[in-house]
């Protein structure tokens, strides 16, 4: 609900989908954008303060909780908190062992970080859509998009990092020749090199794209439905009550999506990196 503007459905939705952007505006210099127009005029030289804030806060929360567990970890009988953390660790360890055949000490911590972090970011979707933005408005912050995984910058930041690791390990394990050979010599043999490169290139580029867009799309759609349901509250009491029921139902269903998408993101990371480690 942008201040000053009349409350319309499309204004409400647009406001909810606008990040708090800080960047170099061609006219105003380094400043916080006051409208979607200003934000897009900033171009690439801008930060989404809300996405980064929540992403870092949730990531730090994850690190803090797990660090406490790591410090307290002993071979004695674990407490219930300890047990819970170790249960997650075991779950990740099982998945890595199941899908990743080479030996690399980076993969399991990477998978753990991605799973818990993405899960926490996704869970922000279950906070009723107006709570945090309205509170932010009270303390003078105009825009507040609280689910970092509905920001493609965040999901691409993760998937491109994984992609970079993929390329790095492909070249490290197979050599540059091996990596290029994989791109050009299959599936049709060396006389069809351009076709091979085209096909394999698409397959390669599709990995980080689908990796991040799958997460982004699911969460963005979920967030959108929450916003649409929230619109019902401003109509009348019957539709408002219906909205309450719908929101609850969608939240229950969304818990599944939230968990599933975090899990899929982690598993795909493991699988992609496993492919990078496969020698032919």
């Amino acid at each position, binding site marked *: 609900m942008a201040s000053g503007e009349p409350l319309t459905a499309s204004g409400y939705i647009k406001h909810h*989908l606008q*990040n708090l*952007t800080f*960047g170099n505006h061609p006219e105003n210099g380094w400043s916080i954008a006051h409208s979607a127009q200003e*934000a*897009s005029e*900033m*171009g*690439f*030289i*801008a*930060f*989404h303060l809300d*996405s*980064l804030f929540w*992403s*870092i806060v949730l*990531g730090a929360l*994850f*690190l803090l909780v*797990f*660090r406490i*567990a*790591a*410090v307290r*970890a*002993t*071979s*004695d009988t*674990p407490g219930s908190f300890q047990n819970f*953390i*170790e249960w997650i*660790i*075991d779950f990740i*360890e099982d998945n890595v062992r199941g899908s990743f055949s080479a030996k690399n*000490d*980076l993969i*399991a*911590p*990477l998978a*753990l*970080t991605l799973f818990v*972090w993405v899960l926490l970011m996704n869970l922000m979707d279950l906070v009723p859509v107006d709570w945090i933005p309205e509170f932010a408005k009270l303390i003078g912050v105009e825009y507040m998009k609280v689910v970092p995984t509905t*920001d*493609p*910058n*965040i999901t*691409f*930041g*993760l998937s*491109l*990092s994984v992609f970079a690791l993929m390329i790095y390990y492909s070249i490290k394990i197979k050599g540059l020749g091996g990596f290029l050979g994989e791109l050009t010599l299959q599936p049709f043999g060396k006389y069809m090199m351009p076709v091979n490169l085209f096909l394999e290139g698409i397959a390669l580029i599709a990995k980080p794209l689908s990796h991040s867009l799958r997460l982004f799309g699911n969460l963005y759609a979920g967030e959108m439905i929450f916003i649409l349901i929230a619109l019902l509250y401003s109509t009348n009491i019957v539709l408002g009550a219906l909205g309450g029921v719908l929101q609850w139902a969608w939240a229950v269903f969304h818990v599944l999506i939230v968990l599933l998408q975090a899990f899929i993101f982690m598993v795909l990371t493991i699988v992609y990196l496993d492919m990078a480690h496969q020698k032919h």
Partner: protein
Amino acid sequence: MNINLTLIGQTITFIIFVWFCMKFIWPPIMKALNERRKSIADGLAAAAEGQRERERGHQDAEQLIEQAKSQAQEIIAKAEKRGAEVVAEAKNEARTEGERIITAARGEVEMETNRAREQLRVQVATLAIAGAEQILSQEVDAKAHEQMLSDLAGNL
């Protein structure tokens, strides 16, 4: 939905977080888990060993009891034998002592008899002389008959 520097910010954050997780979270927890796995395995092995130990101890104890029983039996048998021996010895001693006493008594009796006989002999000689004096009613030359009388006394 603009792509902007947030992407780079998120990437840097991601790298730092993964590094932290890899350095300070994953290894200590894995270490604790592996140690616990090992200590549980050790504990189970120790329990099994304890069980075996207990059975062995049980067997040892039974053996000891058996030994003690047989030893006790032996000791009792020995004691009974020794008792019998002591009784036999005592009997023997008593018999010897009795015989000794009897022999001594016999010796004494013989000595007494001899002495009495000596006395009797002397008295008989005197009596004989007195008798002879009576019979002869006269003085007899004691000196003349002494030879005869002492021969007579020696024949007694």
